[in-house]
């Protein structure tokens, strides 16, 4: 229900006989990629550096914002609602026209690539909302995660099912019929299917029950330690800070505090104003 309401939130044409209410996108899928350039010496694995930009012709949301993640590490972004966390993620993924700044991955400057090509370049992303295909079955959702892969995906599929047994039970059910938390699990599973070189998660634990959240964090740690860098936005700040190798506090689209998770947790002011501790 909710996905459809969102897609059609602002106009009277909710009538399904005229138009299909399923998610129209926000990204211009027709944009062509530009060419990639060389990275810079000493770059982290993935870095969005000094990014400034906003949606469409609207005002800038990001102001000189820098986010980076190293191989084998977990970087966490926190901040108040509306700070621009999701926007920063989208910017790194090329879903936003940056006015300034660059995005570099694995020694290449990919600022000019369109999102499709970033997927091919090895980036995996779970958006905050609209992160499943509601009318496709759970299994098909996962298969779509592996769309760019040409090898055998069965093994990865089993791994995901192992990770989320609740979802495994419902593999033949349409994902739109799942409960809020179950959808979230499918969404993360979908990203894992990609076998990306870097994984970006926007609030993966929103609405999942504590036990699953713990599982999820465990899994994320395991993934990161396996060498796959993870960049995520979290509101469950305390748990997130515990596992973060690097943490960014964003306020109004700019970096407010940066440090390791432990450092930020130790900072009283940060904890009170942003982490709710």
């Amino acid at each position, binding site marked *: *229900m909710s996905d459809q309401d969102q897609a059609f939130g602002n*106009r009277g044409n*909710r*009538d*399904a*006989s005229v138009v299909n209410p399923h998610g129209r996108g*926000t990204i211009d899928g027709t944009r062509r990629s530009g060419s990639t350039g060389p990275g810079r010496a000493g770059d982290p694995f993935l870095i969005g550096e000094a990014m400034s930009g906003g949606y*469409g012709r609207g005002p800038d949301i990001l102001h000189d914002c820098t986010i980076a993640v190293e191989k084998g590490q977990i970087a966490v972004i926190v901040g108040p609602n509306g700070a621009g966390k999701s926007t920063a993620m989208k910017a790194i993924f090329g879903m936003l026209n940056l006015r300034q700044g660059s995005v570099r991955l694995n020694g290449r400057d990919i600022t000019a690539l369109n999102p499709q090509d970033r997927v091919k370049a090895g980036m995996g992303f779970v958006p905050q909302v609209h992160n499943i295909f509601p009318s496709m079955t759970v299994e098909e959702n996962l298969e779509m995660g592996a769309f760019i892969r040409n090898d055998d995906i069965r093994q990865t599929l089993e791994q995901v099912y192992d990770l989320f047994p609740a979802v495994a039970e419902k593999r033949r059910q349409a994902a739109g019929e799942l409960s809020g938390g179950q959808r979230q699990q499918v969404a993360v599973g979908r990203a894992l299917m990609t076998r990306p070189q870097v994984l970006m998660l926007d609030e993966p634990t929103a609405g999942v029950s504590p036990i699953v959240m713990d599982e999820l964090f465990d899994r994320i740690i395991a993934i990161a330690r396996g060498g796959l860098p993870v960049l995520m936005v979290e509101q469950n700040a305390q748990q997130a800070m515990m596992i973060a190798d690097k943490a960014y506090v964003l306020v109004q689209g700019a970096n407010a505090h940066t440090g390791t998770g432990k450092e930020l947790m130790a900072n009283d002011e940060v904890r009170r104003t942003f982490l709710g501790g």
Partner: protein
Amino acid sequence: MSTNRQATAHSPWRAPILFAALALLFVLEGTVRNSMFSGSWNTSLAILNMGLISAITALGVNMQWGYAGLFNVGVVGFLALGGLAPVLVAMPPVEGGWSAGGPRVLLSLAVGLGTLALATQLWRRMGKGRLRGLAVTGVLILGFFVYRGLFDPAVTAIEANNPARHGNLGGLGMPVMLSWVVGGAFAAAAAWAVGKVALGLRSDYLAIATLGIGEIIVAVLKNEDWLARGVKNVVSIPRPVPYEIDLQQNPAFVEFATRWGFSATEASGIWVKICYMSLFLVVLLVLILLAELALKSPWGRMMRAIRDNETAAEAMGKNVTARHLQVFVLGSAVIGMAGAMMITQDGLMAPVGYNPLRYTFLIWVMVIVGGSGNNWGSVLGAVLIWFLWIKAEVWGPALIGVLTAPLPDGGLKEHLLDSSAHMRFIAMGLVLLLVLRFAPRGLVPEK
């Protein structure tokens, strides 16, 4: 969500400028004579009058779509139903028509409605089970036979009454302007019935129900001769304005015309059209006033809320189905009124003419081009599109004339020139696409 993106503030002058431009088009049509314009006030005003009627229709559609997001694809039906009113209200009574079977027809219709009412009541009151199904079916079948038993002979009798000239019940001989209200009431009643069934269910039911009711109403008008002579048409429906011939024979008018430098013939045509125009304008403005008053008050706010998010509005205590029914009925009433006005102006009721392309899709084009949700936009879109629809008849072939000018004489050129009538469609399509391209939210978008 990015659909808001192009909602960036529009200049407050936008609407006035566009209306002025539109007015200029009509002035050009009335004064300049070249390959584009006809230079005849009669033509110009004739187009304008029909444009005003279209504007009222578009206003009705806009209420349904723009205010509430209800997709009505049966506009043609409600227009046609409204068009029935002038025949029944204003035509003189048919001698012998009533006595032939009038009361019996009414009785049979009452039986038909009663049967339906009884069946619905039974369905509601009786508990679930096979008995209920049987009882309802029984009532329906019995009712159907009683209805047909009463109806068929009455109709035969009425239609046998001088079929070449009448064969119908005839009207009440009342003033034709009264029929505008009655037309609205007819359409409202039909909309209520459709809405009762289809609103509040899955939304594409409404689309199919309106598509169906449109077809059904037109089919009834075509085939029920006792009502309005069916395809044999009703002509000479009384006018609320003077006849040109009478004016031309009125010395005072002739003198008046010559003083203004017009021939009596030309002036009479213009005068009649101005009379119509004033009537239509009054109706249009009153409707817009009422609509704007409603829209700029808590009622309008509630409608916007419902359109924005039905689920939430329902949770906030708004009876969405009832509101939908209300706007659907109101919008249809306005459409019905326009239908009656159109027939009044044509002086003719010809059900064959009601085809969905012209009376449903074109109206929709008007609403969208004007800017859905905005009353003034609908008016602008309606008058403009109607103007273009009529002018496309001339501009289309002109266009092909220009396009083929460089071609060598021969089969191809001749073929193209021969088929130039179809440029009407192409020209219309081009205009529509261009407007949509450069003003996708309509010429005067909703604020």
